Structure formats: C-alpha cells, structure tokens
C-alpha cells in the first residue's frame, strides 16, 4: 500500500470518518441536538468531493491497490453524482427527520456509509471490490428503508428489500465464483484479456503472456456466469423480471430514502453494471446483448403499464423508476461509447429530477406520510403554487419534454440506440415514453384541474427544502438547455473507459 493508494480512496475515507463522527455524536448527545448532524454530513460530502476534485485530471491516474480500484473519469463522474445526490437528500430530509422524530445521528451516518459504498462501487475494477462496495451500500440501505421502526409498512419494506436483496447478492456471488473459475481472475481487465485470448486463440499463442492461466476458457461456464451476474445487477437496477421488490420498498421507505434509492443506488448499480459488462465482458457481447434487449423492453412496458394503475404517488414513481431503468437499458443495449455516455447523462438528469419530485412528495406527505395519494394533490396548484410549479417541472422532465434534462437524456439514449441499429427497440422505447406521459400528467391534472375534496395541510417550506427544490429545478433546466458540459464529461469518461479495450492493451 502506498500513499497514492490512500489518496485514491480519500473520498471514501473522509465519508467513513464523517459517518462515524455523526454516529458517535448521535449516541452521546441529547436528543434535541440533532442540528449538527446534517451539517457534518454535508461537510463530509463536501470534503469527499474536494478529494475527488484534488485528483483532477482523472485520466492519467494509476490504478490503486494493485488494480482493485480505478479512479478514472468514469468513476469521478459517478462520485460527483453520488455526492450531489447525498447532499440533496440530506438537505431535503431535514424536515422529515424532525417531523418523524428519527434518530438523526444514525440516519445521517447510514446515508454517508451508503454513499461511501456507492463510491467504492463506482471505482472498483475488481469483482471482490464490487461485492464489498455493493454490500456496504446495501446493508446501510436495508436499515434506512426500515428507519421508521414503529411503522409496519416501513419495516415490511425493509424486510422485503433485505430478503430479496441478499437473494440477488447470492446470485451475483455465484456468478463471480463461476467467472473466477472460468478465467482464473477477479480483476475486470484480466477477465477481459482472458476472454479475449479465448476468442482469438491465435493471438494468444503468439503472445504467451496473454494466455489464460487455466488453458482454454470453458464457454458454458462463462455463459452461466454472465447470466448470474446479470440477475444480480438487474435486481439492483430494478429491471424486469427482477423488479418485484421495487414498488413495495419505494412505497414503504421514508420518502427521502426512496429518493436516495431511486437515484443514488440505481446510479451506483448501473455504474458497476456498465463497468463489468463493458470492460470485462465486452468481448462476449453477443451473449448478453439480447438479455439487455429483452429486459429493457419488458421494464419499459411493465413499468409504464403498472404505473398507469397507481393511485399512490410514491408507488407510481416506483413503477416509473422501473420504466426509467428500461430506457437506460436501451442505451446499454447499444453497448457503444455513445451508449455508455447516454446512460451516464441520463442517470444524472434522472437523479436531479427524481430527487426534486420526491422532495415535493415528502413535503406534501406531512407527518406520518399521510398525504401521498393522488387525490390529496387536488387543488394544490393554487394553494401551494410554487411547490406545484416545481413538481410540474420535474414531472414534465420525467415525461421528457424539451428544455428539461429528461428530454436530453432520452434524446441521447435513443440516438445511441438508433446509431447501433436497434430500430425496433428504439421505436418501442419512444412509444413507451409517450404512453408514460399519461400517468405523470395525471398528477398535474390533480394539482391544477381537480377541485379539492379534502384540503390537506401544507406546511411552510423550510430553507433547506427550498434550496433543494430550486437547485434541482435549475439543474433540470440547465441540463435541458445547455447540456454540453455534462455531456462532454460523460463522453470523455466513456471514451476513456473503453479506450484500451479494442486492442487488448492494459
């Protein structure tokens, strides 16, 4: 271990320290001194972001810990995204934590630990590290989901998330084990080389250093392993047919945690999904592209159809999150540089608009999340004009109306897919995104066009929440009108990620 290794994981170290400090403060302080916790959490996130920025430019960094971690532009992009998501969630949960009397210290500590796990996921270049990062973030999330201990739905969500999550992890692990058996490696780059050497054995014979350690790679084992890895990742990104947990978990979890899961965790899962499949398994793309094709299509269709039937807004957004995973899989199916960049851009745009939408839901929900049905939103357009207007912006962005980040996200996705000649998938995808407009519009209809049956109480917006709303709205518009900077970042990261793969040079 060298100093440079430590610098590579400095962001994670800072987060872990901040998390421990917050947790200890929570344990030793009086109940009412919870105001410090969000501040320390934000400081920790800021420090971690600073540690990422300190290592700029990310292109030339050596891998750390013998190739276990890779802090490239790809991982920097995701780190920044996670920190942003976590910071917005911290800010938007200040109202919630106070009103539900949650243990503030533990809550913020767990958020930081989960973010740290996600950061590790984004930079790991080794299946072991991926597993550990995934588990760190998952274990913290399991608790966060059940954080309203006395509420039956919350603990029920937590249980479902935990059982199904560990079930999926077991599949992922089995996939890792078989991949290890087939290639003799857990490092993604080495797996890539081993598989590539298998594909053109002539090259392998000519350059003995590339010969896999176990002789010929058993293709059946590789195929099985890819399928198992796919199950594990598809579960984490909530793609059909491994989506069944999503609506229940998203509905029962505390609303800010739902926002965190649907944006941060999903992005982290896609980050490892992309890295494993695009770096290690790119050579056998023909084996897994059809899996993504089918799963992407089914996610869009089932997610949208089920969302049409929902009356609970959190549940509706949960189904819509399945559909959005489907759109992202469409770009993934293209398995090109453009596709990777499109996935990254979409995740950023989706995170911002979805956090905004959940922030509004959390605010309207009031104590005990009483008001989360669509009918509760009737007439809010006139009683809380600014909140309703921001909700409208987020929903329009989720539909994909131009001038919002959601539109550009979809545009890049479908551009990448069409460029990869996935014509039918693209056509079905755009039609799906048009159908999806219906259920988002229903919320707008309730807010502006229905007389209120029950006047739900609307609390005053606190500054932290106001900041979250303004920030996510501004960012949604910014990504919709001037997407250039973020898109350049994403494309460069994608280019660097795939740069050295074509010619088999490490």
């Amino acid at each position, binding site marked *: 271990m060298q100093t440079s290794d430590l610098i590579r994981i400095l962001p994670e170290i800072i987060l872990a320290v901040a998390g421990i400090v917050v947790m200890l403060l929570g344990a030793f302080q009086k109940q009412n001194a919870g105001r410090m916790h969000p501040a320390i959490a934000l400081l920790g996130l800021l420090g971690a972001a600073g540690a990422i920025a300190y290592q700029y430019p990310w292109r030339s960094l050596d891998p750390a810990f013998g190739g276990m971690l890779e802090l490239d532009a790809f991982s920097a992009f995701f780190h920044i995204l996670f920190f942003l998501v976590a910071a917005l969630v911290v800010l938007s949960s200040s109202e919630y934590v106070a009103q539900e009397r949650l243990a503030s210290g533990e809550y913020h500590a767990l958020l930081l630990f989960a973010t740290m796990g996600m950061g590790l996921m984004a930079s790991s270049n080794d299946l072991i590290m991926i597993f550990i990062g995934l588990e760190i973030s998952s274990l913290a999330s399991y608790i966060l989901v059940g954080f309203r201990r006395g509420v039956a739905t919350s603990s029920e969500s937590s249980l479902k998330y935990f059982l199904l999550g560990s079930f999926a992890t077991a599949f992922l692990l089995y996939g890792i084990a078989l991949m290890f058996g087939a290639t003799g490696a857990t490092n993604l780059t080495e797996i890539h080389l081993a598989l590539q050497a298998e594909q053109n054995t002539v090259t392998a014979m000519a350059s003995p250093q590339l010969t896999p350690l176990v002789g010929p790679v058993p293709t059946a084992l590789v195929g099985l392993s890819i399928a198992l890895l796919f199950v594990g990742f598809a579960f984490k990104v909530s793609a059909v047919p491994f989506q069944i947990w999503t609506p229940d978990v998203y509905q029962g979890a505390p609303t800010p945690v739902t926002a965190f899961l649907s944006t941060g965790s999903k992005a982290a899962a896609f980050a490892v999904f992309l890295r494993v499949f695009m770096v290690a398994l790119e050579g056998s793309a023909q084996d897994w592209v059809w899996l993504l094709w089918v799963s992407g299509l089914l996610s869009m269709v089932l997610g949208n159809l089920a969302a049409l039937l929902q009356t609970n807004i959190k549940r509706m957004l949960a189904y819509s999150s399945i559909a959005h995973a489907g759109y992202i899989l469409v770009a993934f199916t293209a398995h090109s540089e453009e596709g990777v960049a499109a996935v990254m851009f979409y995740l950023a745009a989706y995170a911002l608009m979805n956090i905004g939408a959940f922030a509004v839901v959390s605010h309207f929900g009031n104590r005990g999340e009483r008001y989360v049905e669509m009918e509760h939103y009737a007439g809010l357009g006139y009683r809380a004009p600014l909140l309703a207007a921001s909700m409208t912006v987020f929903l329009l962005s989720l539909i994909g*109306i*131009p001038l919002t980040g959601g*539109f550009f996200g979809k545009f890049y996705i479908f*551009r990448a897919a*069409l460029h990869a000649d996935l014509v039918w998938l*693209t056509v079905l995808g755009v039609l799906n995104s*048009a159908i999806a*407009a*219906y259920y988002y519009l229903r919320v707008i209809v309730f807010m502006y066009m229905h007389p209120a049956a029950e006047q739900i109480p609307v609390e005053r917006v606190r500054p932290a929440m106001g900041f979250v709303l303004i920030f996510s709205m501004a960012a949604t518009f910014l990504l919709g009108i001037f997407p250039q900077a973020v898109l350049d970042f994403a494309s460069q990261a994608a280019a660097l990620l795939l740069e050295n793969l074509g010619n088999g040079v490490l």
Partner: protein
Amino acid sequence: MTWIHDHILTVVLFIPLAGAILIMFLPKENKNGVRWAANLTAFLGFLVSVPLFFWFDSSVGEFQFVEKVEWIPSIGANYSLGLDGISLLLVLLTTILGFIAILSSWTSINERLKEYYVFLLLLQTGMLGVFMTLDFFLFYVFWEVMLVPMYFLIGIWGGARKLYAAIKFFLYTLVGSVLMLLGILALYFINRSQTGVATFDIVALQNLNIPVNLQLWIFFAFFVAFAIKVPMFPFHTWLPDAHVEAPTAGSVILAGVLLKMGTYGFVRFSLPMLPDASSHPMVVNLMITLSLIAIIYGGLVSLMQKDWKKLVAYSSVSHMGFITLGIFTLNPNGLSGGILQQINHGISTGALFLIVGIIYERRHTREISEFGGLSNVMPVYATMFLIVAMSSLGLPTLNGFIGEFVILQGAFEENWVWAALAVTGIILAAAYLLWLYQRTMFGPLDNPKNKNLKDLNFREMMTLVPLIILAFWIGLYPKPFFRILEQPVQKIMERVRPAYYAAHPDAFGAPARLNAAAQPSASLETEAAAVRSAEKRAGASR
C-alpha cells in the same frame, strides 16, 4: 436599424416570452394590469413582425433574416432562424392571430388570469419558433414545448370535458412527435454518413439522396406526427374534443396556427427532404385518398352537428383536407394553393371561433337550437358572421375562394376525379354554413333569453375587423401572396418533380430562364436535360 434588421426574428420570437416572464412578476390582484400587459405584449409582437413583410425580398429563393448561433456543438444542433415565403406568411398569421386571441379573452377569462396569459404568450413563442427555425432539432424542441401551454389552456380554462380533451390532445400529439424524432435522427445519421458532418441544418438535410425504401420509412415516421397535427382523416378524433373544450382563444390558436404546423411540416420537411417517397405513387394515392375522405367526411359530420363549436371544428377537418389535397397534387398550383389556403383557413376559421366565442360568452351555451333570429338583436354581429361564413365556404371576392380554386386547379391537372370529389366538399361547406346561419341568425326570435343580447362592443369588433380586412385583401388582390410563394414552390417542385417545369414552362413559379427561352428548340433541350438529370438522380437513389 441594422441591428434590428439582423436580429428581427429573435426579437419577434422572444417578445411573447419576455412578456410572459414580466407578467409572472405582476401581482395577481391587479387583473387589469395583467390584461394590459398581455395585450400590449401581443400587440408589440405583431407590430415588430410587420416590417418582415416589407423587408422580405420575394425574388430571393434562399432563407432570409438568417441568424445562427452554435447551441450544442457535440451533436451539431444550432440556434438558427430564417424565413422563406412559406414561413413568412405563417409567422405573420401567428403574430396577428396571437394578438387577436389575447384581445378576445379580455372579459371571457376571469379566473387565474395571470397564468392564462402566461401560457398564451408561451404558446406564442413556441409556435413562432416552429415556423422560424432552420434547425431540425430546434424545430422539434419548439414543436414539443408548445404542447405544454396548450395542454394547460385546455385543461384549466376548458369546458365540461376538459380533462379528457387535454390529455387526449397531449398524448396524440406526443405519440406522433416521438416517432418524428426518430425520423429526424435517421436523417441526421444518413447525412452524417454521406457528408461526414453532424448537423440538423434543414437546408443541408434537404439535399440528401436517400434510397427510396428508407425514404418511405422516414416518410411514415414524419407522416404520423404531421397527420395527427393536421389532423388527417383517421387521426382527427382529438380535434373536435380539444376544440370544443378549449377556451375561445385556445380554439382560435389551435385552428388558426397549431393545425398549420402539420401542413407546414409536410411542405417544409416531407416533400423536399424525402422527394422520392413523397412522389411515390402509393404515398400520393394514400394521401389524396385520406384528404378526400377528410373533405367529404368532415363536411357530412359538420352537417349533422347540434353544437355550434363542434360544427366549426369538423369543418376544420374538411378544410384541412383541402390543404393536404393541394400539397400532394405535387404541382405548383396545388402547392401554392395549399400553402395559401393555410393562411385562409387560419383567418376564416379563427374568425368563426371568435364568432362562436362571442355568443358563448353571452349565453353560455353553444346548442344551435337555443338560437334563432339573432340578426334582429345583433345586426353587426350577424353581418360579420355572414362575411366570415362566406369566406369560409369560398365565395368569390373572399379569401377562401382563391385558395380552394387554385387547389382544385391543381387537382384537376392531375386527375379530374380528385377535383370532382373535392368540389362536393365545397358544396357541403355551403350547405352546413348557410344552414347554420339560417338556424341561428334568421327565423323568429322565439327564445326569450336571446331577446336582450347586446351587439358587439368595440373590442369585439376589433378582433374581427382585421381578419375581415385580410379576407377581402386575399380575395381581391392575392398577387403579393402568390409572389411571395413563387420561389419556395419552385424549390419544392425542383426537388419533388425535377422535370415538371421543363414540361410546363409557364406554370406557377417556373424559373425565369425557362420563360425567357420559350423558343421550341431551347425549351426542348432544357427539358431533355432536366429529364436526364432527374433520371440520374432517381437511379442514384435506388
């Protein structure tokens, strides 16, 4: 003056947006302040657009007033604006109808006034952008963005079934436009692989050679979007709902401008970018058949309506059928008639909706059977209604006649059956409009509720008078309009039927050199050359 000359389109485009932002900051209670601000903005928008008409040089074939700024270089999208004859007329129509629509809502809208005007002005910017832009990507942005204010206008200030109508409008249009987006992307990739340049520039995309079967696919992707917007026959079901439920200003804008975006799309994109698909016999037959069905079906359904506004809405289906018929005759007469008829339809149907709106505001019903003998109490109203109805049914000296006549000429040139069937549409129009007029304006004034109706006030007259003046102008002296259309029509014809002008050297819009070289030998030579080049192009594209 040069600055304004160079940036006039940007100014015209963003005046409504600026007004909308200004109104957002006005206090809600100050209703008259909001009204004045909105009306002044719209009037200013109209005033600024007037110089376009005088500065426009109709002898130039290229786009004018061009502005271009890089927007998203990595995908090649630009903020680029420009006008040719077709878009000039539509932009002017939009600014004047926008102003009239806002003026017409002074008293009819009383709740959520501020939001109402904000949405109307946003809509105005969206529509202007659609007609002005020279970048296909920007076009799509405007095309979709404009859905949102229209959705709110119908959904908040609409009639009894407003929710249904608003969502139907939104979803129909959205489904069409996402398919169009794929078509746009396909053209973009084809252009990139042929020229190596990633661009959405409309002029560049108009010069592609694409294999016919690919053209057909893209054509149908565009077709769905444009046909829903027009709306053409099987896609028209959203229109009556949206029209009937929308507030008056919404209907005026919807009929006057929004529907034109569909036909504009055909003329601007489908024909010049996909010439071989557009002139493919299957496509032509399909489009003509759908147009004829729309003409006759729209007329028959109008005849049966009991609701005044619904009648006007269905008459729109019929009239828009004329426009698509004209466009897909693919000859200069049909095209120029089809384009001019877009303006005419905007004027006369817009005015018809205003007429309906005025009576609805007084009586809060649109049942035709509720009315009768109105000409006794509202003579000025009855007179104006008569002129507008005549303009809509195509009486000579009024605008509708010119447009429909030229379209029929074009249709007759291709196939007399088309013209004959289309004429029945005119007869039906005469029937339903005159019958409507008779039932509402003439007869005994037997409904007591109608006895005390007030005639038009000055403001209401001012909404109708400009349209009536325009109707007479186009009806009596259409020459300037045709001159403006000459160059664009010629360009489209050269893409769609390159050999046409050689064979018809005195047709509308024929290049001047052909007219000058009327000697038989020279004419034959050019014709042969034109035919050869056409064959070469056709061969290359197959």
